[in-house]
């Protein structure tokens, strides 16, 4: 659960958010919409603590919540291999490197043949999939997804949606900036950035019933990990 209390943010004299108050529940997908330049990405960065609020506060229900961030940049090192990248991020986030988990995750996103190739030679889609693998491997409590579907093909998008649903079932809090129509059907709440504030409404996730079984499978899958 994340709560924004009277959050304002301005860059120099440019006001981006004025007095935003909102809360994002855990175990739910929050879709964030808005025009280009309206500050969607900034909102995610504020929540991640990457950018400081000008006034107001952002409170987490858990102090030690792990945050996974998927953005426009891939956050990968081009001169390391796919495997080395994942191993580094695992250690950097305070987990011990687990070879099996990494290889399994690489297989999951379909990068097994490229596990030991330099990331620099990857296509945009492959890099994005590896980036997704990085986030999933860290098993975050909060997902900040900034248009994660960019550059992904159809199969990978389905994979991404599956993972989002799995994470929801794991009681994670998912903030998802997306243009996708599919996004609307998954979301528990839809927030729109307009007029320097955030307007949220409840939504009926249409895939709820359909994913019921899938979610259970997902949990089983997690236990195997």
């Amino acid at each position: 659960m994340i709560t924004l209390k009277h959050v304002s943010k301005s860059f120099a004299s440019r006001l981006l958010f004025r007095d935003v108050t909102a809360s994002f529940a855990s175990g739910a997908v929050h879709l964030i919409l808005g025009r280009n330049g309206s500050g969607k990405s900034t909102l995610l960065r504020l929540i991640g603590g990457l950018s400081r609020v000008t006034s107001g506060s952002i409170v987490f229900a858990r102090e030690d919540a792990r945050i996974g961030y998927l953005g426009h940049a891939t956050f990968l090192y081009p001169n390391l291999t796919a495997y080395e990248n994942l191993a580094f991020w695992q250690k950097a986030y305070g987990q011990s490197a687990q070879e099996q988990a990494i290889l399994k995750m690489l297989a999951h996103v379909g990068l097994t043949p490229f596990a030991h190739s330099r990331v620099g030679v990857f296509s945009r889609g492959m890099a994005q999939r590896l980036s997704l693998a990085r986030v999933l491997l860290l098993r975050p409590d909060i997902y900040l997804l900034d248009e994660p579907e960019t550059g992904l093909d159809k199969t990978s998008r389905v994979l991404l949606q599956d993972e989002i649903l799995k994470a929801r079932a794991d009681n994670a809090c998912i903030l998802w900036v997306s243009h996708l129509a599919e996004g609307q059907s998954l979301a528990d709440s839809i927030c729109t950035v307009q007029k320097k504030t955030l307007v949220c409404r409840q939504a009926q996730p249409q895939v709820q019933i359909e994913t019921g079984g899938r979610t259970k499978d997902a949990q089983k899958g997690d236990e195997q990990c």
Partner: protein
Amino acid sequence: MLKLALALARKDLSLALRGAGLVQSILLGLLLVFMFSLSQKTGSLASGQMAAAIFWLSSLFCQTLVFNMLFAFEETQGARTCLLLSPAPVTDIFLGKALAGFVLIFLAQILFFPAIIVFLGQTVSQSWPMGLLMLFLADTGLACLGALLGALSQGQTARESLLSLLVFPLLAPLLLAAISVFAAVFGEQAGEDPTSWIGFSAAFDAIFLAIALMLFRFVYTGED
């Protein structure tokens, strides 16, 4: 605890040794040594103090390049964002960068030292253990300030010159210490007891380590 620092240092070292980055800074240092050897008249030897000064100037240039490289790693694909999101404290990033920088500078110096001996015709005197201690202290200082101020270049390209403008004068006291102790290592008769320089360097390191640990989180942020 310190897991991020160690992981980061190891990753940076493997990246630095893989690319051309370290080779570039080593070559620059060696080139400096060679160029200075031109300033000698035929048949005459460079004084110990001059050799020491050249050794530390090379190290200094190497330090600037190394830290620019280390912080550039985090910028190419925006990895800084994810480092900062790690649950580990930001000072871990500082420690990781400083550690990696220390090792890289040291590696470069292993090559500079014989180059100085060969090109500038130096001999190593009995006070080499003192020199080794000084090397450790001076490299710590170089790494400390390098890791703190190298972070200034975040989100910047081609700001090496500004970094060196800041770092060189700030490091001047430490360099004076290092040069005078190394002059003694190269057999120059030292008027001053080198131990006072060692003490001074230790104090310098302690002060700047403390300052860097306090201030790094202000310099290294998610904002561009």
